[in-house]
């Protein structure tokens, strides 16, 4: 029978079997519990970039700790007769202007570069984390003072500031270099931490904790810091790479590590003199430097994807 008034539609009821009712708001008890960090690990594990970069970083750290495992030739026993020599058996990458083995120098130079990078990253992160957290959480006068001091250091380019400072320091060990870099690099971490703490501080769970009677400092340590730390971890990983570059730059300019220490930056600087005749002497330490920096940048990238709630939500 044709429908006389098409505007009125029949009452349709679906069969119950099509969409069986589920208990209201039931908890899936079979699911595995996953914290933010377990979640992040799960996400990272599936990324090849994570495995490549962390494998590379592991290798670099091993080389830095135990250079003798990787090179049997001494980097300091050089013969001028080998100056800028081509590769030969036992010396796969040839010789420097001074007649030293290029491969051995790269292997033994890793330690200084990596030490400076890691040390600077640790100092910057710890200092920036604490200062930024206190400034963001307590606000007011403290925040004003800390932020302005940070701005002053932030305004000075790291390398420029380091050149000025290092030119008056007599003893230029890796620790000193790391400290000098840290002096000019901490405001970045402090700023990021401050911003993240400001967001976390105003969240409902913090208000809930206040109402529960948890003390202000305990709230900072237990709730605010853990929720604000993710972006700092990312920036620390990325800046580790840039600190290695900063060390290389300073050493290249001749005001980095002292003459007794081997480092990629120094080698690149010394290779300048023979760049026309034997460019490979410059090339190999540069490749080592680039690979190291790349590894840390890649890891930072993966970490950011895994920890950033916005990219997490998209998965």
């Amino acid at each position: 029978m044709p429908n006389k008034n098409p505007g009125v539609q029949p009452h349709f009821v679906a069969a119950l079997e099509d969409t069986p009712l589920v208990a209201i708001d039931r908890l899936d008890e079979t699911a595995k519990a996953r914290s933010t960090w377990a979640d992040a690990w799960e996400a990272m594990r599936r990324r090849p970039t994570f495995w490549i970069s962390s494998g590379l970083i592991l290798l670099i750290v091993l080389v830095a700790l135990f250079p003798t495992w990787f090179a049997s030739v001494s980097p300091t026993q050089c013969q001028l007769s080998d100056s800028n020599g081509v590769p030969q058996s036992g010396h796969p990458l040839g010789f420097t202007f001074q007649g030293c083995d290029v491969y051995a120098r790269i292997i033994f130079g890793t330690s200084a570069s990596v030490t400076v990078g890691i040390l600077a990253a640790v100092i910057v992160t710890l200092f920036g984390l604490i200062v930024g957290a206190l400034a963001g959480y307590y606000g007011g006068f403290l925040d004003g003072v800390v932020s302005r001091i940070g701005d002053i250091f932030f305004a000075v380019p790291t390398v420029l500031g380091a050149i000025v400072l290092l030119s008056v320091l007599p003893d230029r060990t890796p620790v000193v270099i790391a400290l000098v870099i840290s002096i000019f690099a901490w405001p970045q971490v402090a700023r990021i931490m401050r911003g993240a703490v400001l967001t976390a501080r105003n969240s409902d769970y913090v208000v809930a904790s206040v109402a529960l009677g948890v003390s202000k400092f305990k709230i900072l340590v237990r709730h605010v810091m853990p929720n604000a730390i993710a972006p700092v971890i990312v920036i620390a990983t990325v800046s580790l790479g840039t600190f290695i570059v900063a060390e290389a730059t300073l050493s290249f300019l001749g005001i980095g590590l002292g003459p007794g220490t081997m480092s990629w930056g120094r080698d690149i600087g010394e290779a300048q003199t023979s760049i026309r005749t034997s460019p490979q002497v410059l090339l190999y330490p540069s490749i080592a430097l680039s690979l190291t920096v790349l590894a840390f940048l890649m890891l930072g990238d993966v970490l950011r994807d895994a920890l950033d709630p916005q990219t997490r939500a998209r998965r």
Partner: protein
Amino acid sequence: MTQLATETVKQIPSTDSAPLLEIRNLEVGFRTQRGLVPAVRGVNLMLYPGQTLAIVGESGSGKTTTAQAIIKLLAGTGHVTGGQILFEGRDLTALTAAEMQAVRGREIGYVPQDPMSNLNPVWNIGFQVSEAIRVNSGLRGKALKQRTIEVLQDAGLADAADRLKQYPHQFSGGMRQRVLIGIGLSARPKLLIADEPTSALDVTVQRQILDHLATLTRDYGTSVLFITHDLGLAAERAEQLVVMYKGKVVESGPSQEILANPQHPYTQRLVAAAPSLASRRIQAKKNQEPAATEIFSMGGIDTALITRATERELAASGKDLISVEGISKMYRIRKSGLKYDELLAVNDVSFGVKKGTTTAIVGESGSGKSTVAKLILQLESLTSGRIDFEGRDVAGLKGRELLNFRRRVQPVFQDPYGSLDPQYNVGNTIAEPLLAHKVGTRKERQKRVLELLDQVSLPAATQFRYPSELSGGQRQRIAIARALALKPDVLVLDEAVSALDVLVQGQILNLLTELQTELGLTYLFITHDLAVVRLVADNVCVMQKGRIVEAASTDDVFDNPRELYTQELLGAIPGGDFEFGR
């Protein structure tokens, strides 16, 4: 058994025999790492010219996805994987992006959900409206400006000409929603899709907007597709109803018929849980004829709630547990330089709460109801007045005494997504207050956590889970468990069920009243939702602009509201007079 509220909906006789919009077996899926996840599974619906159709369902039922599929605005990785969307006989799923652009705006208008984020804050209102008109009509210069003013006036902004140069932040939520409706209707589309157009607004504003929308669509003969979670709104504003559940249509047809006589078990469940002003009237009936009890005990949460309310009334003692006397809160809003504007958020408010009862503070946004809650919780300091708890002034409590007060008066907040620390698992979250107050040993705390989980009807295994893995309702249970950990006397529930789906909301309300009877709790219930108040509260304070305009027992307020404002509030509730089939 039920009475149709026919006067609220005008049946528009349709002369056109062909449907304007016909959706056939629509399937939409989202691509994820775990493969294609279906969101809409074989939806059929028809909408005739001039008709209003409402799609109702809880979050995740696929109602918004269906609407977005019509105008090809599916978020992220969503794709139409099957079926047809016929608009005037044309299959929209087969159109190219360019062809679709011509349909969007000109033939199908769209009013998005959130008026706060859907206007661009860097452009003025005039520009944003005229942009939409220019694209769809090709008008330029003076004519364009003239039309822009017309569109805004049509949408209910009388002084539109003066407001063109204003920016979104200078508009209230209701005004912004009017602008969005104006944009949606600017090209006189044949179909308007409105996705929860008023759920972010106060009821009185919602009523104005819906009335206005109805006038506009009647004048232009526009068909409207409402997406809503509000059954009352559907009953009042739509002729046709489509009930969605888990991506499927479980029931469809004339809305009042369905809501008065739901057939599918899911619809029955939904209708039974819908809080409505008619709820307590059932109690009145029940008291008169005890024989009728069985009929009502079948469906819904009402009967259980009513029994408990009666028990509370009998048990209530004569003395106030909390007594609030003439409290005020002044906020100083910084203006340029050293100048301040003063805002009196709470103005000379007094009321008392008896032990073991529920007092609701109702009001629209900006009425100061949440500030009252914060003042009582000692999260904000009083400007003047006095708050007594068990006869002792609590203002200015410090150290140990404040800690003891906090132990006895606990809050539950609105947002179940924000009030739990995402880094803490459920067990640690619930144990936190115990730890903060140094209660018990590790083992005892662990035992108490399990006890509390049981009280809020969650399995023991929940303690190892993290908030991100739980639903809104489950999180709210955790928040309640945490609040109960220290065995408090008072819970301050600030919009504690407002963000939840209606079925989950019913469940939580049921849980709250159950716990109240069991533990002798006193509730201070802050909400904007009068229908919920009717279900759970013994006494009501209606707030407007920082003042209490009416305070009385729930039945008095609902049955004989004395103040004009209260009457307006009650009148504005969509479907307030509609008696759902239960």
